[in-house]
């Protein structure tokens, strides 16, 4: 039987297990939208295409599956670019379908034509333009395969209007015999053996994990491994949740706004076992003084990440789960025992660092402290919510003061630092995990970048909670102006903001406000009890800064611990 391109698209997606599309219609995708209408394919209509891409990304991060979005050509397509780069930087598997003008018009500057494959070439893992309806089904499957395999990432598929209108015989294609690189790496056993030898010999070992452990679904193996080797674990921003934040071996996050003890442990360790992290400059600080005494082992699925920033002693190209599984097997076979004395001394040293400079803030005063809001969110959700963040101070405080014990529960734009990410990502996460409480921890600046999505959450009664840490400033930029630019607050005062409570209400959501510390707990309790979307507006102390802090370019051991 012959099917239309639009039908083939939805059929191929369904065959790949995709059951939700985030999207926004327009002229060249009308045939696809007509098919969505007829088949009742689950589609969430957002209010801006950037939000469609972020929602697909949030869906992917929360579920561990590929997120999918669909937009029209030209401005619809270009509006997704920030979302695509956000996913690219954090290796998140999404597939973006963009409409395109009919093939005969491509290249003629037709109405709403944009060369979106050209535009996104450097920021997608791969992209396609489908020129024949016969290629469509296979391309859809390849796109999903590429997005989720190896080091995941965004893939874009450009669909000219005539291709979604044309008809062809639909053939169910079997499992993909892709010509593409086989992404499953089998870790080098010798190197893993050497890893265990190095662990045995190390007196002060540290494990650093990144997003690769979450993407590789290796958290359970990591726990088993750490349980056996008793090595303290630090996690990057992307690695939050890969290892339980409440575990006594957890060091929290390293780097610019990391913990004092994570940075000290890295600086003094003699072995740094890094798994699925890429030594971003926000983590390493001054490169020459990063882990200066350590042998470094780096396990990563992407060979291009190894020796890119930091030269390592033992590179291992593997996905995190295969490597950890194999290490656990070896530990078991070798009757591994830890060098007790050395380990006790090292853990004692770390305990002292933790005691010397725990994460803290001044609790006293009339004003609500933003950190306090996060602590209370943590307490009242029993640490069991999915948290998304915007970017800035809100993001760092969320990373510092909410403890995550599960992977796929902290969703934040780490690599690109995209303000406006958190709210639409929360929508995607909530759609993927309807059972969970999902909270976007936001700043008053960031939330305004995709605030239109209030219409989406009300439309579908998606019960996302937004907690705005309202400081009347672009807080993180203000903090840098305070420290590095002589308190000249150039264009960071945004106190001309809408009344978020009334704004939420105007959209049909619930808005709540707290201005005093004692109002925080009852407000959060009330919000969590409301079965629909809620905006919580916390008037927080605008003077508050994120500490500890390492100045850019300084070694990570050189920390300003705050006032």
């Amino acid at each position, binding site marked *: 039987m012959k099917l239309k391109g639009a039908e083939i698209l939805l059929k191929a997606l369904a065959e790949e297990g995709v059951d939700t599309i985030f999207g926004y219609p327009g002229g060249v995708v009308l045939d696809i939208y007509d098919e969505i209408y007829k088949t009742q394919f689950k589609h969430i209509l957002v209010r801006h295409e950037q939000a469609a891409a972020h929602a697909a990304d949030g869906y992917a991060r929360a579920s561990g599956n590929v997120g999918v979005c669909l937009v029209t050509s030209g401005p619809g397509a270009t509006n997704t670019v920030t979302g695509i780069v956000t996913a690219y930087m954090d290796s998140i598997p999404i597939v973006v379908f963009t409409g395109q003008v009919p093939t005969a018009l491509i290249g003629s500057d037709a109405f709403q034509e944009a060369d979106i494959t050209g535009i996104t070439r450097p920021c997608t893992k791969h992209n396609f333009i489908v020129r024949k309806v016969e290629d469509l089904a296979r391309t859809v499957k390849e796109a999903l395969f590429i997005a989720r395999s190896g080091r995941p990432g965004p893939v874009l598929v450009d669909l000219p209007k005539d291709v979604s209108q044309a008809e062809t015989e639909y053939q169910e294609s079997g499992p993909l015999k892709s010509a593409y690189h086989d992404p499953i790496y089998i870790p080098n056993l010798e190197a893993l053996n050497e890893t265990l030898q190095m662990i045995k010999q190390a007196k002060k070992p540290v494990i650093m994990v990144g997003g690769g452990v979450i993407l590789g679904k290796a958290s359970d193996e990591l726990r088993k491994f750490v349980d056996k080797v008793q090595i303290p674990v630090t996690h990057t921003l992307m690695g939050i949740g890969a290892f339980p934040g409440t575990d006594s071996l957890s060091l929290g996050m390293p780097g610019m706004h990391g913990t004092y003890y994570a940075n000290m442990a890295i600086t003094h360790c003699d072995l740094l076992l890094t798994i699925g992290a890429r030594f971003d400059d926000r983590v390493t600080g001054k490169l020459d003084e990063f882990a200066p005494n350590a042998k470094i082992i780096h396990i990563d699925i992407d060979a291009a990440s190894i*020796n890119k920033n930091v030269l390592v002693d033992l590179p291992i190209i593997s996905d995190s789960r295969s490597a950890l599984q194999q290490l656990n097997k070896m530990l078991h076979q070798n009757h591994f025992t830890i060098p007790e004395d050395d380990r006790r001394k090292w853990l004692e040293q770390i305990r002292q660092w933790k005691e010397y400079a725990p994460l803290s803030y001044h609790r006293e005063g009339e004003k609500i402290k933003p950190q306090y809001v996060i602590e209370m969110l943590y307490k009242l959700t029993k640490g069991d919510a999915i948290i998304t963040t915007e970017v800035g101070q809100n993001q760092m405080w969320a990373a510092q003061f909410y403890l995550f014990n599960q992977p796929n529960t902290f969703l934040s734009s780490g690599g690109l630092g995209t303000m406006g990410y958190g709210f639409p990502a929360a929508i995607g996460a909530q759609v993927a995990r309807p059972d969970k409480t999902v909270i976007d921890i936001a700043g008053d600046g960031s939330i305004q970048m995709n605030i239109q999505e209030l219409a989406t959450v009300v439309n579908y009664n998606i019960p996302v909670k937004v907690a705005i840490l309202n400081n009347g400033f672009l807080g993180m930029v203000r903090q840098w102006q305070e420290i590095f630019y002589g308190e000249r607050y150039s264009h960071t005062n945004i106190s001309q903001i809408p009344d978020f409570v009334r704004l939420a209400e105007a959209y049909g959501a619930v808005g709540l406000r707290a201005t005093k510390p004692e109002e925080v707990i009852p407000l959060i309790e009330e919000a969590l009890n409301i079965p629909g979307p809620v905006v919580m507006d916390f008037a927080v102390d605008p003077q508050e800064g994120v500490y500890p802090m390492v100045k850019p370019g300084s070694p990570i051991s050189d920390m300003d611990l705050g006032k």
Partner: protein
Amino acid sequence: MEVKKHTIQLVVNNKPDVLARIAGTFSGRGFNIESITANITMNPDVTKINIVTTGDSRTATKIQNQLKKLVDVLQVSHVRETKYGQREMALIRIKLTQETKEEVEKAIEELNCRVITKKSDSCTVEVTGTGNEIDQALTRFGPLGLEDMSRSGIVAL
């Protein structure tokens, strides 16, 4: 680390945007392309591309690792410096005057050039060889009145 030339050979899917992807990988990551050639192979579905770049050996490895990630790049190899494995061709136009004519002819013979055209006041010759040999030819013809030249970039096996 020593900065030198590296020849990287790619086998890629024969698709219209594959060159753009490769060039974009170089420019986006701050690597430099000194020369590039793309040639058909025995298999019409794939193309062979030779790129000469400069950098230390760590940079060369980084480039290769990035190129390997491109979906349409099927194979990446670093072509080692073998004398006959890498060839390049140049066309060189040289001015001829009464004084230089003899010198030029001598050079043409010694450098094993092929004369393509010859007029009373200029001649065009073809030189084939390693990159070094082409460089030598250019140095030799330079002072004799080199008018223009064009190099093919490397082909390698």
